[in-house]
């Protein structure tokens, strides 16, 4: 069952066809978004030598880029809501490209902060938000798989861009490499071009919604206050599911990046040589690449899809347990095994992280929700690795770091698991009241539709939706016959009589 409030999609998601090209576009977009801050560190040594900056000053470039990328969430949500995904991704791609090109002419570290950090970060945040929104528009039944494939962009691009950047650095120096990297980032515009806006084909229920949207748009244009309110839609915090997701995620993100940053150093401290230690991260990334689509596929199955929140909490718990068990490791083969399991659990979590939010929030509220989530996640993400580093400095042992990260993540996972049980239980209790409310609003909506339109729908329309509902319901479950899936909710809107027949 999907705890998402029954959303009026107004159209049937494609779940295939051009949708797969959109997934390719999202793959490229998300790939650049997550991998660029990390692979930039390859240039740092040369930039440091050239501009005469200290190591911590240089490292700020990546941190600023990542922070702006996440903090820009609400802004990009508003833009996506207003203009749709395609122009935003193209704009994001242009901004990223321009940022890298201008950075290649830089002569001071502050200039690089501005170009790469701020402009580049803004571009990436536009990319990220808009791509995820587009997937939720194009997919419903196969959405977990689409999400898994799109999120796989991150490890793929990391594995590809790292050696490419090394080669560019060797051949052209850091300025030339940034110039070429800017050109490569223009490919995000190609990704944006692929994101064809969804042509909402008009079914009867579409028109009242469209009228309401137009009204809403005009009032928005009139007052600035409304747009400021939309900026940070705090009404999300009233949603129990959202708050649970947010808290669990914050705990996960806090502990997630520390182990990645310190794994090579930990391995070296155990006596592993430098080259093999760096190899561990490559193993992790390589495993991650395959696990994300795989997880998407598994999450799409009819057993897991309705229980996707539990699957997500399992993945988080798995990740935390990996880190806790890593404190027992002493030898290299076990470190390799740890890297593999780390890769698997990390991939699982990230394949599901936005799918679960889409599942909770539904199509309409997702863009604003993801903006809010990313700006809040900004803080644990920036605080996590330095806090872990501080622990290492204080206690002198890397095991403390893994222990801390593992326990924080494990807490997050268990929190998600138990709170989701509670949330579903509460939703079941509140259901009868909600159903009555929905039926009332349905009747009101139908009254708004002209009589002529109603006459156009013969009984055949009811027959049409019934077999459709049965055929394409494979991904949704019927845990108990009364649960309303998102699809059935759409059909319910169109034909309240049908629902009564089903139930």
């Amino acid at each position: 069952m999907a705890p998402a409030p029954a959303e009026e999609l107004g159209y049937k998601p494609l779940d295939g066809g051009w949708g797969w090209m959109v997934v390719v576009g999202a793959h490229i977009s998300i790939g650049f978004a997550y991998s660029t801050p990390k692979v930039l560190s390859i240039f740092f040594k040369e930039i440091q030598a050239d501009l005469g900056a200290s190591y911590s000053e240089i490292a700020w470039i990546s941190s600023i880029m990542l922070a702006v990328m996440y903090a820009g969430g609400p802004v990009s949500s508003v833009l996506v809501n207003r203009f749709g995904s395609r122009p935003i991704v193209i704009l994001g791609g242009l901004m990223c490209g321009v940022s890298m090109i201008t950075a290649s002419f830089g002569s001071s570290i502050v200039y690089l902060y501005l170009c790469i950090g701020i402009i580049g970060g803004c571009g990436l945040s536009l990319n990220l938000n808009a791509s995820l929104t587009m997937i939720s528009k194009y997919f419903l039944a196969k959405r977990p798989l689409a999400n898994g494939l799109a999120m796989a962009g991150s490890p793929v691009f990391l594995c590809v861009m790292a050696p490419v950047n090394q080669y560019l650095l060797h051949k052209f120096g850091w300025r030339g490499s940034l110039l070429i990297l800017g050109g490569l980032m223009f490919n995000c515009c190609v990704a944006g071009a692929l994101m064809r806006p969804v042509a909402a084909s008009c079914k009867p229920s579409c028109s009242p919604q469209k009228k309401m949207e137009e009204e809403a748009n005009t009032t928005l244009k009139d007052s600035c206050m409304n747009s400021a309110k939309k900026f940070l839609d705090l009404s999300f915090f009233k949603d129990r599911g959202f708050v649970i997701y947010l808290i669990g995620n914050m705990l996960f993100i806090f502990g997630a990046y520390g182990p990645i940053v310190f794994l090579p150093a930990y391995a070296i401290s155990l006596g592993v040589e430098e080259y093999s230690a760096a190899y561990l991260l490559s193993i992790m990334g390589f495993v991650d690449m395959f696990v994300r689509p795989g997880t998407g596929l598994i999450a799409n199955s009819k057993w897991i899809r309705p229980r996707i929140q539990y699957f997500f909490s399992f993945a988080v718990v798995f990740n935390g347990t990996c880190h806790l068990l890593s404190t027992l490791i002493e030898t290299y083969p076990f470190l390799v095994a740890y890297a593999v399991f780390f890769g698997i659990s990390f991939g699982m979590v990230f394949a599901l992280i936005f799918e679960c939010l889409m599942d909770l929030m539904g199509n309409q509220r997702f863009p604003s929700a993801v903006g809010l989530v990313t700006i809040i996640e900004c803080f644990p993400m920036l605080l996590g690795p330095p806090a872990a580093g501080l622990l290492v400095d204080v206690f002198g042992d890397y095991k403390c770091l893994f222990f801390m990260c593992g326990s924080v993540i494990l807490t997050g996972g268990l929190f998600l698991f138990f709170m989701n049980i509670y949330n579903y239980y509460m939703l079941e209790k509140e259901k009868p009241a909600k159903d009555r409310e929905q039926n009332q609003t349905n009747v009101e909506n139908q009254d708004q539709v002209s009589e002529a339109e109603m006459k156009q729908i013969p009984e055949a329309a009811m027959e049409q939706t019934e077999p459709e509902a049965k055929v394409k319901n494979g991904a949704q479950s019927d845990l108990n016959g009364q649960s309303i899936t998102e699809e059935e909710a759409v059909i319910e809107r169109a034909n309240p009589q049908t629902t009564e027949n089903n139930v």
Partner: protein
Amino acid sequence: MKLLWAVSALLLSCWRANASTAPNIITEPSEVSNQTSAVLSCNLTESNLPIKGSHWMYNGKVIETSQSGDAAPFTTLRLDKITHSSGGKYECVFLTEPEAKQTIEVKTLPHVAAYKHSEHGNEKDKGSMVCVSHGYPLPTDWTWFKEEDGSMRPIINGTVEKYEIKSTPNKTTLIINDLSMEGDIGDYVCSGTNELGTTTDKIHLRVRSRLAALWPFLGIVAEVIILVTIIFIYEKRRKPDEITDDDDSGSAPLKSNSTANHKDKNVRQRNSN
């Protein structure tokens, strides 16, 4: 007068006492220069103090394998292979009250190595090359040469604005300003000289053209523009079919049943409108 004699006699006796009890260490050899192996030995003479043992020290740190509790006034240290890393100050120490020690210097040719044997620089930018040295004694003199047509042309610091040499005993840096592709590409030789001799190492400098990165960049931008154009053209071409396509996909499962059902035909008609 008598007081004066007494004092001088006292001083004389003290001096003689010191002279007679001061230990004297004879080292063999007194210094090692440019040898591939050596045996260092120390002989403690003119001392009747008890000897508890002896050991050797290298650059201030105790050589653990040389420690012995032997009360002999004679100790040796074998150096089988002398390289630049084993050059330095060796001290033999006899454990007496007070300790008696003597130093033997082992000198080698300097070992000069370049940080990187292949350096890159960008046109019109600065290029720098670094050589470091290990060994004892460290070079007192550093010189840089540029290899031109088989012969080495020395680079003199300060005369030309183009070249700058910064040297310390263990590191030397050659900075070339305003690199040019014609004149500055080639091999550079750094040479370090100490009292025993000179050693050199070679670095190859490559200068990247300013516009080198421009061509791949333009190529990529062209590719992006072409792809975006293709995608948009494809979309415009599909647009007339698209609306019917979407609706058709909605009723696709029914197409197989359509022949049997009049009502479904009606549905299709409605959709295509």
